């Protein structure tokens, strides 16, 4: 079912990509409309993170076929930073540490860059401090994380929270959350997913990559896709995730050929 007044945000057709000469993505089709939440599930190594990184423009991956339109524009015409400024956000499965660069400085620069792109007001360090502290409250994050290096020495769960903090700051059009749930304790999962839900509007969309139903209890998907060997081999509603939880992945694909998303 298509929401009233929604529009197509992302249109992926036959996307193929290689890394180090190995083809990982073998023809992905996916359509994401505003207001939607899509979950992508699938076995380890099936290409979920690769798909996310290709959309974000990681230079290690070469696109060898297919097309991606983002809000009607060819996504591959944009550099990674232009994609980010245009509203594509990736919460990384493994956020990298950047020692020596203060988190507060990094967050402010990212925020101001995106604000400038949108023709909105940039904040000076003091204004930003207040602004970011509010957002951190939402995620029940200790402000001391502002003074530390970006992700430097953060625990697994703390890194994930810092990713969602960035999502909250940058208010993306399309947020791709790559296994944001892994590493979060039970309380943190509730806090972070509540935060994500608050950010979800009729104008934006979320792609959730996850292995577990528990995340989807909080952020209820409109579509669930199953990925295997670089393709989306099955698409269903939120009940598909429950099926997968009980039955595993083996049965998928034995039934019917791949179907494009929505």
């Amino acid at each position, binding site marked *: 079912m298509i929401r009233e007044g929604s529009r197509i945000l992302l249109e992926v057709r036959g996307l193929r990509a290689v890394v180090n000469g190995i083809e990982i993505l073998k023809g992905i089709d996916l359509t994401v409309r505003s207001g939607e939440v899509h979950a992508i599930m699938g076995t380890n190594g099936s290409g979920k993170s690769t798909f996310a990184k290709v959309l974000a*423009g990681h230079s290690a991956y070469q696109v060898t076929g297919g097309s991606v339109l983002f809000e009607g524009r060819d996504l591959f015409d944009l550099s*990674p*930073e232009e994609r980010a400024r245009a509203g594509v956000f990736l919460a990384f499965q493994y956020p990298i540490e950047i020692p*020596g660069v*203060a988190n507060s400085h990094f967050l402010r620069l990212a925020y101001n*860059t995106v604000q400038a792109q949108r023709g909105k007001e940039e904040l000076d360090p003091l204004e930003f401090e207040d602004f970011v502290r509010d957002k951190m409250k939402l995620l029940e994050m200790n402000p001391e994380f502002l003074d530390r290096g970006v992700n430097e020495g953060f625990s697994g769960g703390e890194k994930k929270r810092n990713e969602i903090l960035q999502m909250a700051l*940058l208010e993306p059009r399309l947020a791709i959350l790559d296994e944001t749930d892994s590493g979060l304790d039970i309380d943190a999962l509730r806090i972070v997913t509540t935060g994500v839900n608050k950010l979800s509007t009729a104008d934006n969309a979320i792609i959730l990559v996850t292995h577990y139903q528990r995340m989807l209890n909080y952020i209820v998907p409109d579509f669930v896709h199953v990925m295997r060997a670089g393709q989306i081999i099955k698409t269903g509603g939120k009940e598909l995730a429950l099926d997968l939880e009980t039955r595993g992945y083996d049965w998928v694909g034995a039934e019917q050929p791949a179907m494009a998303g929505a």
Partner: protein
Amino acid sequence: MSAVLQNLVNQPYKHGFVTEIESDIAPKGLNEDIIKLISAKKGEPAWMLDFRLKAYYQWLKMDEPKWPNVKYPKIDFQAISYYAAPKPKKKLSSMDEVDPELLRTFEKLGVPMHERAALAGVAVDVIFDSVSVATTYKQKLAEVGIIFCSISEAVQMHPELVRQYLGTVVPVGDNYYAALNSAVFTDGTFCFIPKGVQCPMDLSTYFRINTEESGQFERTLIVAEEGASVSYLEGCTAPKFDTNQLHAAVVELVALDNADIKYSTVQNWYAGDENGLGGIYNFVTKRGLAKGTNSRISWTQVETGSAITWKYPSCILQGDNSVGEFYSVAVTNNYQQADTGTKMIHIGKNTRSTIVSKGISSGHSNNSYRGLVRIAPTAAGARNYSQCDSMLIGDKCGAHTFPYIQVRNQEAKVEHEASTSKIGEDQLFYFAQRGIGSEEAVSMIINGFCKDVFQQLPMEFAVEATKLLGFKLEGSVG
């Protein structure tokens, strides 16, 4: 240039040896006559000539050092002209005459407008009417008894002070380049802070050397008497060109009881083109003597230029409880080579030293840290902490660390930490994913990496140095 010096230089040639030399530039090559000529041209007293000759004869017996981790074609020391009459820089009459490339650089570095003019050699009064800046500056210093002048002027005006201290920290035969410098130096800076005086402002070469070409063999001597303190800034972030390829400076610092000397350098000599051709060879001997009890010598350097840098600002911690510090950022790009570091020689009791070295290499460059910590048997309770971090940008550059530690006292404590990191594709991607381009990302990472050193720089210098690094590494990624 000072009037005194001007007069001396312009004096008719009267001493009589090597009569065939009348021009303003000495013939190429080095021999006793040339040294006598230099000394005579400068109207120096006999002890100064003796100093030079002694250095020369030691130099003759020495060999060029081969141990640094740098490669360059053999220098023909007989193909260099060792004396040219100091001449004022060519004055330009307006900013329009300045090389646009240079202006672009100033712009990027954020050099203030009035300084741009001065640095580019535009007559100051054309651009802004604060000709009196330098004069006011000198007056203020004179009021508290500080001497701050060219070393040539000091030899004339304060011979007893120069004679007392010159060569006491870096002896004439200390090393090949220092010996050469001692024999032929033509100019440099002298700075004397009398007992109990806290220098009211940072002393900057900017106010001294702007009116003349700096020499190829610069000589600097800074003396802080009991309880005196001074912060001295050398160089500037603006790129510095010179037609002389070889530069061999000597800097000597002397700190008496409770004195404090902080020496900060931002070095941005021409580094050669992107293939490494034509850059300056910078072979410098810098050494501070913490002579008195509780004295302190602190070196901070940001080395970004030169094709080859060979430089080890050192501290001799002679006084009990004296402190030596070395904070360094050395950046190499393209085909630059740097072999730099420090020596901390602990002699007095409870002497302490800190070494923080940050080497950044990119392109095809090579960056070596070489540090010696020596604890003499007399240095009971001495402590040293060293931290040497290297950062690589790309995979064609090299970073090397050569720590030498010699401890001859059981009670001493020496700590050494080292790390190597790389600016990786994934880090840059993380920045990009948040909308931040690679230039800015690199600059943020580098500034984070250098923070401990930049904190030591005087505020304005730190801001400039930050920009300079970004500029130096521009285009080194992506």
